[in-house]
Every structure is written in structure tokens, then in C-alpha cells.
């Protein structure tokens, strides 16, 4: 009598497509995935604990290293929470600069997503193009604050420096070239038949399942639920801008890819409006040299490229936070891995992992 047995396969912690040091324990029946368990902690750096021993200003560089491909969005979220706690009013001009930089970084982050998805599927050439175009954004940030990845540009109370005319020119040139870049990706990847076969109809996640797991960001929107904090819980100056929220239908890998590609052009729309409408004024509010927020706690969220980035800060009235908890979207989105992989082939695990787009610095914190 013939009988089959399941067996275990450990994928990672060093694997080219796990986006860092994630281990996935796969239980397989032949080539079908029966169960998949992500094992985390290989990059646990204890950021939350380290923050307790730092002043509010010293905590800022650690937020750069959480989600290292979109550091601006993390800076933004942290500063927004601290300002709310300490009741600091931010000048209108700083709000606009923050929005411009956060959206530029969202574009850069989605370009990394496109590049790494292409590599994971086996199209190495597909990585070269988004990475080439991402350098344009990094050039802007480099000119702005001298760093390519860890910026700390958005500070508590405002931003570090004003836009020079050279930077405005660079941003305008980048925005003018963006449609042709997207055309290139579409010709190279989106229209590719093999690419479509790999993505369409695999790793389905229904809207109901996504909501139950607390998934946010492009992954939730790909499942058809219209939830974007920039619109639904407007913060900073997002209510001044016109933009739409791209939605998917089925919640498969293809939708998660398309939603992110569409978000790039929406972000460009926001940047263009913000650049045209920058008001005059100060770029920083008056912040005391030693910041001692009043006793209390706050939970504040903003929309990062991967979903809802939340900071829960407890203050005991001293210059250092008593406790900081960070809601990292990658960590929570990764919970969907088992649903996305169950019943599909081993090859689809790689694609599912890539469209979740986890950043391990953020998952392990």
C-alpha cells in the first residue's frame, strides 16, 4: 500500500529571498505546503529597550534603523507621536516638507519592492531598473541631509533644513521622469507573461481574513478594503491634497503588486501638489533643549509604505521615555504567511513572502 508522509523543510535564516534573516519552517506534502511557521528574532536588536535609556532626541536615529528602506516615514511617525504628547505645534511649512519627503521615500520603498520581487521570481534584470531609479531619490536625500539611508531629517518640532532651489529642481526633474520609469517597469515586468502566471491567482487573502489579522497598508488595500490613514485619519497636511487610494479585487499576489505600482503615481501626485503649495514661514517650532513631556501616554499612527506605523509612548515626566512600544506593520503583516502559503507550491512561498514585503529590521525590532 502506498502512503505519503509530510516532511519539514527549513527555509532560512540565510536564504536569498527571505529579505534578511527570517527562518520559515515549512511542512510539506510532496511539493505542496501543508503548514508554514515564520521563526523570528534573528535580528532582534532590542530597540524598544534601548530607547528607554535615551532622551527623546536620542531615540530618533533608532527609528531610522527600524524600517531601513523608508526611514523618513519612521522619523515622521515617531516625531508626530512625541509632538502630540508634548503638545508642540508644527509650522505649516514643516508639515509640507515632511509630506514631500515621506512620499518620496514611499516611492523609493516601493521601487525596492518591485526590484526584490523581480529577483525572487528569477528576473534578475528586473532588479537593476528600479534600483537605478531609486538612486535618483537617494541623491535628493543626500543633497538634503547627507545620508543615503539613515536620514533623521524629520526632527521633533519640524525638519532639519529647508529646501534649496537645487533640491526643488532635482525633485521636479525626478517627477517629470517618473512616468517613463513606470512605463519601463510595465514593459519589462507587468506585461511579461511568465511574471503574470506566477502572480495571478496565487496566495489569495480575502478582505475579511486580512481585517481579522490586523493587516494594514497596501496588503489590506489589495484585498479590497479601503483603509488608508492618510485619508481615514488625516494627519499633518494630507487633507490639503487630492489623491486616490488604489484598491485590489481578489487579494492575490498580482493585486499586491499592482496596488503598489499604482501607489507610486499617487505619491507623485501628492508631492507635486505639495511642492506647488509650500507656504512661507519657519521650518521648526520652538522646542526646549531638554524635552520633558507631561506625564501620560499616547498612541499615534501614521501610514508607512508597509502599513500602519504606530508609536505607543509612556512618559513619566522625565527627559527619557518610560516605555516605547512600536507597532511595526511588517511584523503584523507577516502573520498572513501561513494563509498565503497553505495549499500552494514551494515556489509560491517565495512569491508570497516577497509580496508581503517584510523588512526584518522592523519585524524583529
Amino acid at each position: 500500500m502506498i502512503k505519503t508522509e509530510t516532511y519539514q523543510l527549513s527555509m532560512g535564516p540565510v536564504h536569498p529571498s527571505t529579505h534578511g534573516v527570517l527562518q520559515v519552517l515549512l511542512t510539506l506534502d510532496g511539493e505542496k505546503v501543508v503548514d508554514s511557521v515564520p521563526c523570528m528574532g534573528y535580528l532582534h536588536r532590542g530597540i524598544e529597550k534601548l530607547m528607554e535609556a535615551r532622551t527623546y532626541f536620542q531615540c530618533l536615529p533608532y527609528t531610522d534603523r527600524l524600517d531601513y528602506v523608508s526611514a523618513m516615514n519612521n522619523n515622521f511617525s515617531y516625531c508626530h507621536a512625541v509632538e502630540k504628547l508634548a503638545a508642540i505645534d508644527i509650522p505649516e511649512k514643516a508639515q509640507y516638507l515632511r509630506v514631500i519627503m515621506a512620499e518620496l521615500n514611499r516611492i523609493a520603498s516601493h521601487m525596492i519592492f518591485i526590484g526584490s520581487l523581480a529577483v525572487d521570481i528569477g528576473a534578475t534584470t528586473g532588479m537593476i531598473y528600479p534600483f537605478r531609479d531609486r538612486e535618483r531619490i537617494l541623491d535628493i536625500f543626500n543633497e538634503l541631509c547627507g545620508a543615503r539611508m539613515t536620514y533623521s531629517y524629520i526632527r521633533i518640532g519640524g525638519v532639519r533644513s529647508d529646501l534649496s532651489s537645487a533640491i526643488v529642481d532635482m525633485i521636479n526633474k525626478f517627477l517629470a521622469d517618473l512616468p517613463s520609469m513606470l512605463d519601463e517597469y510595465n514593459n519589462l515586468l507587468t506585461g511579461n507573461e511568465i511574471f503574470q502566471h506566477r502572480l495571478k491567482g496565487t496566495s489569495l487573502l480575502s478582505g475579511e481574513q486580512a481585517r481579522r489579522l490586523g493587516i494594514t497598508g497596501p496588503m489590506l488595500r489589495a484585498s479590497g478594503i479601503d483603509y488608508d490613514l492618510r485619508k481615514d485619519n488625516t494627519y499633518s497636511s494630507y487633507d490639503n491634497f487630492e489623491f486616490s487610494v488604489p484598491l485590489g479585487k481578489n487579494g492575490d499576489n498580482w493585486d499586491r503588486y499592482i496596488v503598489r505600482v499604482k501607489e507610486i503615481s499617487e505619491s507623485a501626485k501628492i508631492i507635486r501638489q505639495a511642492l506647488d503649495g509650500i507656504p512661507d514661514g519657519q521650518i521648526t517650532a520652538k522646542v526646549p533643549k531638554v524635552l520633558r513631556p507631561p506625564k501620560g501616554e499616547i498612541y499615534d499612527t501614521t501610514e508607512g509604505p508597509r502599513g500602519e506605523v504606530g508609536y505607543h509612548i509612556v512618559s513619566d515626566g522625565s527627559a527619557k521615555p518610560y516605555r516605547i512600544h512600536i507597532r511595526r506593520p511588517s511584523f503584523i503583516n507577516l502573520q498572513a504567511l501561513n494563509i498565503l502559503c497553505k495549499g500552494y507550491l514551494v515556489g509560491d512561498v517565495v512569491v508570497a513572502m516577497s509580496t508581503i514585503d517584510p523588512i526584518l529590521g522592523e519585524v524583529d525590532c
Partner: protein
Amino acid sequence: MEIVDIVPDVLKNNVMITTIDGLFKWARSNSLWPLTSGLSCCAIEMMCAAAARFDLARFGYEVFRPSPRQADLFIVAGTLTWKMAPPLKRLYEQMPNPKYVIAMGSCANEGGPFADAYSVVPGVDKIIPVDVFIPGCPPRPEALIYGMLQLKEKIRHPEIIQKVKK
């Protein structure tokens, strides 16, 4: 009698003479095969170094191998935690000799901003021997390329390093 004297006159202008050791050093230094293994932030800069703009292929170092058995250069790019240390050491041991290690970024050098965290190894040289340290948080791709060129010098002229040790 020198080796040069054995060479027939016809070939004297066409043949270069060196030792086997010199030939191997020259060949090794020009084609390092790095292991595809990124730990954290620095890995993104490592990818950028291999991508279109910085183009590591100009120096012959672009053949990133996913298997440690095919690689001879280990770029430790990012923060090493105590949980990750055993797999990292195992990867190093799986690489065939001769092998080289580059510690990329402050975290790999001495812990960086996480040096006082309970879960972080303060420098990969506590776990495996390191040939070149590259500072920066994260180092720019130019810095990585410079580090790899320094490693090239080290492979070609090991006597320089030995002198310093004495």
C-alpha cells in the same frame, strides 16, 4: 641556475615567469565570489553596490553566490545578534579555503548604535576572523568597493600585513 635560464631563447619575449603562489594570488584577488547574505540595513547598500550605478562588476566581484560552498568572500552586512551567531559561524565554516571576511558597517565592526543592547554581538570578530573592517552606518557603496580593493591588496601582498603584526 635561475628559472629564467631554462626558458628557450625563442620564448623569452613571450613568456612571463612567476611562482605558482604568485599566480594564485593574482587570480584570487581578481575574482572574489561573495556570499549572498545580508543581515540588515547594510545589505541594502550591498545590493546598491551590485546594481546599475556603482556596478561592482567593473572589479570582477559581482558573482554573488547563494551557497557558502561556492563563495570565498563573506561580507557580514549588518547587525549580528547572539541568536544569529551560530548560523553565521556555520556559514563561515562551510566556505572552502581560502576564505575572506569583510565586516561592513558599525554594527559588524563593534556593535554600532546597538552596542549596549542585550541581544547584539559587539563585533563579528568575536565570532569569526575578519580581514577588512568598513566603518559607516551604513557605509556608502563607494566605501564597500574601497574595502574590497583593500582586500585585493591584502591578498596580493600578505607580507605587508605580517610585517605590521610583528
